[in-house]
């Protein structure tokens, strides 16, 4: 099918104004939140209904043209990077909340609905726990594709623990309904976090839970990250599961404080935010214990939020840390490695050593409870060779995480950015097993190709499943 014919068919499905082909319009969609990568697609289709999504995918399938689904484009691994000669399917028009049923603790939404809008739709009694920092703009469809986490997932879990049903358009345009308690394979579980490579979710059913009755938040300042890490270990070892437990190092405190003026101590080597939530009896009993443990681990200053405003300010500073890095360096490269929490001090020490050796600044902002690091490798594109050095350093940090028994990505996804590190974590047979799943869903490799897997792979023919010979079924013969 010539490109012009493909575009005409897309226009017939979505309406002329919802198919973009002008280079300026396409440029807007050339990158997601990871702007180091840029690619211009053949066309951008902006369907307005699930049926239109299905029709767009079917046209792509018939033309054997790859497609990439995109939500709000806030992803940090290049997962929504377009494919040249492919169609980018922007889902931002599918933003209806289809039903809210608090008796069932369930909401059904379209993929373009923002993460925050879901909690808003079920407030004030309920909320949707996964809360990536981009939650006010990021879409739930993107969250499903990436299995997004956030600050509260140590206690509450990830997107995958809350998705109870999906309507998915497969790469050939077939629509399947997947439910969490349906008999058969957990295809729902396999789909969440598959980074758009198994199909496009057009309808999403989510579990929401009651808002905790009581929330207590503190920020404790330590001499260095090692002392703060000791506090984290002490808290978790005491059997306490905080709603959130976040750490910022000296550099990120400096940047974030300059942005929000929340009163974070600039002379501290680490700030630890601990938030406990739950029934009031539990919260009260645990909170005093947490304060004691922080002090015992050497906290110089422990500040307890006395009001909702103070709590919001503590969080604003934490969530602003990424954006505020602009005050420290013109650009940064963010990593998303995970380590077993008990290796925190060791790996942070290693990152320090590497940063010194490379002559670059690395700020650390991370989810301390689950060992998910977000080292921000700062660089200046104007300095020759610095972007490359930063990227190399970021790669070594990822490898240090894998060597410590962790993962190359905790919540940002593999996308295009981290696929080169996949062989550090998985052997060839592991990758081949992944490809089997991919081929079962998308044998032609049309859905978001070039992501996740380190090298392009094709799907072989399916050997037909074994079917019993009629004589066998009749009990006349037996297979040996």
């Amino acid at each position, binding site marked *: 099918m010539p490109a012009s014919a493909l575009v005409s068919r897309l226009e017939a499905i979505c309406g002329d104004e919802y198919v973009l082909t002008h280079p300026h319009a396409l440029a807007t969609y050339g990158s997601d939140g990871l702007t180091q990568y840029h690619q211009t697609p053949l066309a951008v289709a902006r369907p307005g209904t699930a049926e239109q999504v299905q029709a767009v995918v079917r046209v792509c399938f018939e033309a054997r043209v790859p497609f990439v689904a995109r939500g709000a484009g806030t992803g940090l691994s290049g997962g929504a990077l377009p494919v040249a000669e492919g169609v980018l399917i922007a889902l931002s028009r599918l933003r209806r909340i289809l039903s809210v049923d608090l008796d069932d603790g369930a909401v059904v939404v379209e993929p373009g609905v923002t993460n925050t809008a879901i909690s808003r739709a079920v407030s004030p009694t309920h909320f949707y726990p996964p809360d990536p920092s981009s939650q006010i703009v990021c879409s739930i469809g993107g969250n499903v594709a990436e299995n997004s986490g956030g600050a509260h997932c140590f206690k509450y879990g990830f997107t995958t623990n809350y998705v109870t049903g999906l309507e998915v358009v497969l790469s050939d345009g077939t629509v399947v309904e997947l439910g969490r308690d349906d008999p058969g394979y*957990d295809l729902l579980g396999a789909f969440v976090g598959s980074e758009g490579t198994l199909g496009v979710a057009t309808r999403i059913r989510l579990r929401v839970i009651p808002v905790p009755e009581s929330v207590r938040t503190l920020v404790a300042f330590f001499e260095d990250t090692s002392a703060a890490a000791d506090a984290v270990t002490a808290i978790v070892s005491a059997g306490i599961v905080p709603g959130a437990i976040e750490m910022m190092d000296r550099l990120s405190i400096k940047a974030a404080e300059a942005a929000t003026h929340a009163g974070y101590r600039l002379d501290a080597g680490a700030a630890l935010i601990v938030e406990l939530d739950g029934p009031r009896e539990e919260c009260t009993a645990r909170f005093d214990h947490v304060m004691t443990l922080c002090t015992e681990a050497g906290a110089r200053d422990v500040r307890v939020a006395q009001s909702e405003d103070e709590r919001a300010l503590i969080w604003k500073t934490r969530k602003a840390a990424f954006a505020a890095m602009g005050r420290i360096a013109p650009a940064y490269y963010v990593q998303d490695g995970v380590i*077993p929490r*008990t290796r925190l001090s060791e790996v942070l020490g290693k990152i320090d050593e590497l940063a010194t050796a490379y002559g670059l600044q690395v700020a650390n902002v991370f989810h301390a409870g689950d060992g998910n690091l977000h080292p921000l490798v700062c660089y200046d594109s104007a300095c020759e060779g610095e972007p490359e050095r930063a990227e190399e350093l970021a790669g070594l940090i990822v490898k240090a995480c894998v060597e410590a028994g962790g993962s190359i990505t905790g919540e940002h996804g593999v996308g295009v950015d981290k696929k080169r590190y996949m062989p550090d974590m998985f052997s060839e047979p592991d990758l*081949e097993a992944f490809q089997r799943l991919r081929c*079962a869903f998308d044998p032609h490799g049309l859905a978001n190709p070039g992501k996740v897997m380190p090298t392009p792979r094709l799907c072989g023919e399916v050997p037909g499943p*074994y079917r019993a010979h009629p004589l066998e079924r009749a009990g006349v013969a037996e297979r040996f």
Partner: protein
Amino acid sequence: MLARASAEGQTIRLRGGGTKLDWGANRAESRIELCTGRMSRIVEHNAGDLTAVLEAGARLADAQERFASAGQMLALDPPLAAAGSSDAAATIGGIVASGDSGPLRHRYGAPRDLVLGVTVALGDGTIAQSGGKVIKNVAGYDLAKLFSGSFGTLGLILSVNVRLHPKPAGTATALGSGAEPGTVAAAALALAAAPLELDALDIAWRAGRGGVLARCGGANPVERSRRAAEMLGAAGLEDVDVTDEDEALWERQRAGQRSREGAVVRVSARPSMLADVLRAAELCGGAVVGRAALGVSYVEVEPAEAERLLAALPAGAHGMLQDAPPELRSAIDPWGVQEGPALELMRQVKSRFDPTGVCNPRVFVGGI
């Protein structure tokens, strides 16, 4: 063994502790049985990281004893797996492969929510890993979920990496009963919507009477259970009580998920359909235990009543036969699955992971 069987066109029946061997469709005869019993090591228990690595044949009860010594637990409590019990034969591999769970699913989820990674041998003998050993990880496809509940039809689970949780310092349970399904169900839903952070929220029903059980764990479980009990009373339940000697109550809930002589239909429905599920069970002389907030119920009936029960379930509820005599499992499809695109996709998955059909042939949905 799998590679050889695949090359020779043999089939293999995979098994763990043998506690759920008759679930699913009646099996095709396999000349080879592969038992994980000798792969029973607790390979790692990383207490500081709240993670562990278990070989598939490890009995959950044994692993729990080990975790308990560090004040931790694997938050899975299916039947036949309680530490210290004489019939706790269920292995972690079997529990994951069958997706079985118990009352703790209310708070902590099913096996698929607690498994961080798996090592598996596929139908052609390829050994592959997915996931990792850290609690947060999105690298690669989540094959651990795909293998959870796959009944050994994609390959053999060799070992699993799991997330652990702190064992609550104490527990207490609020309970109340009633004779009207609507009242019992409404009381359970009221608790489901309350911010009490319950460890478990179950219902039970037998012979015209039922009840709600709400378990609290933590530093102050009795006080919180009293609040739960007040809500049960306000919702119209009788005999409302709180006890901190609650282990036997929950063992009974777990045991109610299984049946030696009868049939057990596992019902999944919207939580708001609970009253109708109870009425359907009552109509067929059934006994129910279940997870009120998740809409999952286990209904035990006489085998002769199973079909009537399936027909009496409210629209939108799905029934699946678990324990049942072989005749019944021949007479009706235990999975109750319709042909359609989802089943077709499952067949594609099977043909990719076990191309020659070596593993547990024909026990699963749609003859997989």
